[in-house]
């Protein structure tokens, strides 16, 4: 069971390394989107400090989401997905591997640069810590839930945009608790409650999402 999961993770990470662009781009998308807001809204530091958690989280949502269409699409287009579905182990395990690899490539780096971006918005050290923790805790859920959306829209032409339509509403709880944790820290209320809710969401969705995605993939392959 673990052998197949690690085999999938290994392959996907190797592909990501080959493409390079993948890792770097999701990250830079995050950085650029976050930097766009002050441009549109204006430079007042007070205003920006209030915005920071929301903006960072929305950008994290979008960056994760943007890489979703390709989660299965490449494998689908070149026929690998068929082969995976025909392999003699449950497809859910394969998807678990792919979700983990997706998080390693697109979620983890976000958590690592988030503090730097937070500084641009003049956040305090405490808030930065909670922000990083929240993104670390929340992004696996984004990958998991996103996998369902990616699987459901697989092979549909409007895919890229359609997936956002399906997935973003499901991301809202993560957004609310994630941004809430930072907000609570900024206002001095303490973000632990939010963080533990976030952990619960992540736990549930990483466990459950791969199997839902596997079911969706089988339908897409008919």
């Amino acid at each position, binding site marked *: 069971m673990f052998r197949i999961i690690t085999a999938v993770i290994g392959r996907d990470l190797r592909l990501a390394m080959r493409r*390079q*662009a993948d890792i*770097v781009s999701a990250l*830079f998308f995050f950085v650029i989107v976050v*930097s766009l807001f*002050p*441009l549109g809204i204006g*430079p007042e*530091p007070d205003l920006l400090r209030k915005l920071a958690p929301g903006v960072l989280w929305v950008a994290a949502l979008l960056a994760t989401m943007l890489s979703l269409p390709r989660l299965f699409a490449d494998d689908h287009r070149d026929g690998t997905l068929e082969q995976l579905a025909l392999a003699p182990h449950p497809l859910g395990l394969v998807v678990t591997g792919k979700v983990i690899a997706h998080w390693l490539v697109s979620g983890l780096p976000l958590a690592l640069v988030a503090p730097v971006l937070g500084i641009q918005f003049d956040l305090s050290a405490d808030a930065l810590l909670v922000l990083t923790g929240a993104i670390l805790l929340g992004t696996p859920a984004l990958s998991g839930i996103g996998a369902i959306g990616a699987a459901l829209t697989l092979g549909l032409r409007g895919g890229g945009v359609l997936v956002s339509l399906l997935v973003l509403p499901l991301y809202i709880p993560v957004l609310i608790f994630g941004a809430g944790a930072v907000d609570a820290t900024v206002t001095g209320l303490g973000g632990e409650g939010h963080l533990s809710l976030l952990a619960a969401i992540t736990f549930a969705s990483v466990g459950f999402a791969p199997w839902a995605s596997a079911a969706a993939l089988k339908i897409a392959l008919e």
Partner: protein
Amino acid sequence: MKDRFNLYRFASPATFYPLAGKMIPWFVALAVVFGLAGLYLGMLVAPTDFQQGEGYRIIFIHVPASWMSMFIYLVMAFWAAIGLAFNTRLSGMMAQALAPTGALMAFLSLWTGALWGKPMWGTWWVWDARLTSELILLFLYIGYMALTAAIDDQRRADKAGGLLLLVGVVNIPIIYFSVKWWNTLHQGSSVNLTKSSMAETMLWGMLLMALCFWMYSIAVALMRARTIMLERERHTDWAKALLAGEGA
């Protein structure tokens, strides 16, 4: 056909490679000389600034790095134009060799600016027009590098990257004139050929440091260009002869 052949030869890697090899030590030496002189003037001789105290001494790297970040981009765009117009192999290599140094310069400009901003403005970062456009410049460098890295066919990578450089070059005047067009926190241009508001030694220190950065950039870019050149031309006769000749 004939004059194009000449141009091609002039810009041919086979002649350029050894030439660059000979030029690098000279540029390194110049960079060291200018750097030492600039540091001596700027750090040891120049008096303090009555407004900013000693913190102003960051200017001796901040301004050269900022200048170089813009200048390198212009040079890359120049090579790109040559490459697209005359289809020379060398131009793409030069542009690719310059990009990382340009990105580093943009990064240094941001870094030193941020370190300067904290004591002067009380914040690491403000969303001011010049600062923002410098950040965009960094993104343009990274975009260029990401694009050329994503294309495996070198000829295609050069052409596509060149096109991007030419499109992105509109940003340079925006950075340069941003202080004039929007009134911002960031300082306006104070180097002026006719009258200067700066102390003489300060000005000279800055100019010398700028020369140092310039020479340094040329030296590093040439080094990188040589590697790229060898890698890409490994199947040509000159590269083979060179690889066979050079001691292990």
